[in-house]
């Protein structure tokens, strides 16, 4: 049953990602992105990190997407003629630029170098370690990230 849910959310995420790419209106794109992130949350949950899933939902649904939607609303102006960028390179070259990495990653995946096995739902206990690690060995990282977020907020001020 867990497999079923997993496959379902994975496919849903990919579908919403492609929608996001193709939407002409920014608002629709952002909603599709929110949907993809929610599927990501479900995947976190399935991978045995419910706390992470919860944080993902909280951060993204709650804060980030709200900001983006507000920004989308705030930017006035008619929708531009076409939503695609005017790349100065010939069309086939652009598509090749995108298809080739996909093939390369596919080759990587097919090469089977990835660690396999193991049931989908890992023991819940691992997520209990997050706290001690964040404030233990990774204390420097957490400190740095908090300072980083503080610095990012400085961007909003314009003296």
């Amino acid at each position, binding site marked *: 049953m867990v497999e079923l849910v997993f496959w379902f959310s994975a496919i849903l995420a990919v579908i919403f990602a492609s929608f996001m790419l193709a939407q002409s209106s920014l608002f629709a794109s952002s909603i599709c992105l929110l949907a993809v992130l929610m599927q990501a949350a479900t995947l976190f949950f399935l991978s045995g990190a419910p706390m992470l899933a919860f944080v993902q939902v909280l951060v993204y649904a709650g804060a980030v997407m709200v900001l983006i939607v507000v920004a989308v609303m705030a930017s006035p102006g008619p929708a531009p003629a076409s939503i695609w*960028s*005017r790349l100065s390179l010939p069309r086939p070259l652009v598509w090749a630029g995108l298809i*080739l*990495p996909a093939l390369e990653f596919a080759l990587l995946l097919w090469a089977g170098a990835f660690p396999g096995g193991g049931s989908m739902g890992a023991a819940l206990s691992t997520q209990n370690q997050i706290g001690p690690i964040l404030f233990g060995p990774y204390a420097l990282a957490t400190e740095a990230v908090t300072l980083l977020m503080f610095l990012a907020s400085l961007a909003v001020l314009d003296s």
Partner: protein
Amino acid sequence: MNLVPWSLWLLIASPVCAILAVFFFVRPRKPQWSHWPILGSCALVCLAATDLTSRVYAGMVLDVPVAIWMLGGDWYLPFGFRVDGLGTAVLLMVAWVGALIQVYASGYMKHDPGFSRFVLLFHLFYLAMIGLLVSNNFVQLYLFWELVGVCSYFLIGFWYQKESARRAALQAFLANRVGDFGLMLAVLLLMAMTHGNTSFSSVFRLLPAAPTEMVTLAAFLVFWAATAKSAQFPLYFWLPDAMEGPTPVSALMHAATMVTAGIFLLVRAWPLISSIELLPQLIGWVGAATAIGAGLVACAKTDLKRVLAYSTVSHLGIMAFALGFGETAPAVFHLLTHGFFKAVLFLCVGNIAHALGKASVGVDETGGLAAKMPLTFGCFTAAALSLAGLWPFAGFYSKDSILDAAFHQGGLQAAAGVAIAFLSSFYIFRMLFLSFLGPRREQRGPGHAHEGEPVLGIPVFFLSLGAVGAGWLSGPLSRLLASGWMLRTGMSPVPDWTWNGLFASQACALAGVGAAYFLTTLRPQWDWDWRRRFPRVERLLESDFGWKPTVAAFSALVVEAAGMFSRGWDTRLWDGLVESTADWAKRGGERAASLATGQLNDYLWWMLAGTTGLLYLVLR
């Protein structure tokens, strides 16, 4: 060092000191007195030359290295003197003729603004010629050989305001330089073959061991150098134009001394030349052709100095002709006598020009000078008789010995000998009759001509004595030449005259005189008419059988080719190459800049492409 006689030192030291003294002390203060120290040094040189000749006549032969000139590890180049029969014989003539002409020149050039410069250059030439005669190795000979060439360049171009003098000087120097190309290459080859030796004795000793084709090439190149300096057929064209220089220059350099240096080199290097079997014959034929060709052209010339110039070319041809069949002694003997009588002829022409107040005199400006200038007429006649080779005069003895040998050879050489004898007497007496006997209708007559002041007369007189008496010295001369002669076979003495040789040569000479008399006095207008009637012949003779235009065309071609080469090849190709690399970089920049479109998406696409490339490298 101690065995070097004082006279040899004096010979070299006195001209050097005189030149330095005049340049540094006399010229800045009293330029008009600059000829006194020079004449003093001339006297000392004559004294030293005579003393050296008497020593060599008494049997002394000196070949001594004095110092090391160049040094490179075990390779070295000596600086030394060689005093032997050949050297002193020519040295004697050069010293005395040179001294007398310098006395004449100090009078002739007195009122010329560049007097002290002239006297200095003249004496420098004198030093160079003497150095050439007494040097004991090829490189030292080459040093004085080139120095003589440079002096002739500055002296021909003495009156540099004249365009013709400038062109003549340059032509003379470049022609000599072409010759010197041959001599320098020959010297280098000889040194390479005899592993580093340059002195005459050692080179000739080591020659048999050397590869024959290199020796042939070296010998031919020595002959090539002689043709340039002694005005033989291919490279003679500069001598007639060299008459642009002042008359003393023409007298000393282009008659008596410098032009004989080529013949002197051939005789000095005779062991080398004679070791190649065909080369002497070649020299002979070139000599004959030059003699006859120049003789013919001399008959048609109108300018007095040009006639004498072509006569000099002709007589040098005679000397080469003599060398052709191994007659080295007669050639040297003729060289000496020619030095005397040719100098007299030039000085007389100089007096005439001085009297008429002009630099060069044409035939139609003279005529009937005999009455006005008796001394010049007398000396000129003596020298003319000697040149024509009439019996008691010096020219007869030397020319007859050559003609006699030619008649013995028989066949073609004999015919050439006859032609030469006839032509030389014809053109000199034509000049004599035209200029000295009664003014003709076409001639303007002597005008107020009168004998010059004594300083011009006396040297001419003494020289004419030499022109008359030099013939009787053939006996002592051959003994002098024999001492120190490098060939083991010894030098054949000058053959004394034989009766039938005498008759044959006198017949030709008198025939020449008669023809000249007939065509100039009995048919006075002939000299002018035939030019109108046979214009083609006149043009042929005027252009030296077409040789002068070809030389002019060739030199113009060389200069033009150099210009084209430099403009085309150098500026366009190399500079073009350099400039093009500069704008190759700019064009590359243009194309590269077109990639930087300013579009953010393009940048990101390029980033993606870069990462894909890296990943490709990983997966490869």
